[in-house]
């Protein structure tokens, strides 16, 4: 792998992870519920953005470098699987079964629709 790819993925991760932190806190400060709404919105928006990029890529409108920077670097680091899994287990441990199930399957369903919508939108353009 080239030096440029390494740099570009690192820059994407350097921006993506703090963006998640800031968005998560912004949402959490405004939603007083125990439900981890921040992570939910982050993962949905990130899935949509990566879907859009993927659609544009399939349509042939996406330079490799932008894919690595925004797709692999930013979207990959902005969205998170580990925090999402952890939140589901913690909600279960707390006895919040409905919230846990919604966090797990709601994120999955809405995430699939968001990513699919992004892909479809990218393919149109």
């Amino acid at each position, binding site marked *: 792998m080239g030096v440029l790819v390494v740099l570009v993925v690192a820059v994407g991760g350097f921006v993506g992870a703090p963006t998640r*932190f800031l968005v998560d806190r912004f949402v959490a400060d405004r939603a007083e519920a125990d439900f981890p709404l921040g992570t939910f919105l982050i*993962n949905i928006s990130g899935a949509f953005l990566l879907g859009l990029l993927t659609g544009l890529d399939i349509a042939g409108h996406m330079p490799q470098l932008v894919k690595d920077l925004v797709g692999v670097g930013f979207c990959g680091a902005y969205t998170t699987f*580990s*925090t999402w*899994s952890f939140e589901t287990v913690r909600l279960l441990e707390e006895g919040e079964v409905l919230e846990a199930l919604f966090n797990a399957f709601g994120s999955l369903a809405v995430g699939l629709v968001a990513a699919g919508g992004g892909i479809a939108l990218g393919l149109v353009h």
Partner: protein
Amino acid sequence: MAAEAGEVTLGKEALDDGRRGALPIDPDRDTGESVEIRRDPRRHRTAQRSILLVIGCAGAVGALARYAVALLLPTPAGHFPWSTFWINITGSLVIGVVLVLLAERFPRARIARPLVVTGFLGAYTTFSTYMVDADLLFRGHDITTGVIYALSSLIAGAAAVFAGIVFARFVIRLDHRLNEQLS
């Protein structure tokens, strides 16, 4: 580094009385700043900048680690995306271990959560690629593989977090017992 015995709280009691040492629901939320720092606008800003820098650097390393695993385990179109699967499962196992150790054994290690959890593990694991890869399997009419991928990642991820939590709590108990026998 070692916490005093009074600070160590295990399981549900820790959550019920809201003491420090309780496991959070959303681990990306807390900055680890002390109350005094949060009340002082100037020191709060400086602390925020440092936290963002730590998360950014760890995020860069996490993204590169994920990219490296993806290169080592390339997934041909229409096949089960093993690289993202293993990235997400190993990250879930480690987040369980690390968050229990930080909450119940090393509550004073403030930098560890933004560094390891929010920065590295958050960037190493990914939800967006998981969703897009599942959708691409559906679009390619590999419906069964797509459904198996979507559900097995979800279930294995939660099981990995649970295994990590149980393992870390076991190690902490073992450590306590040994300490009592030795001192």
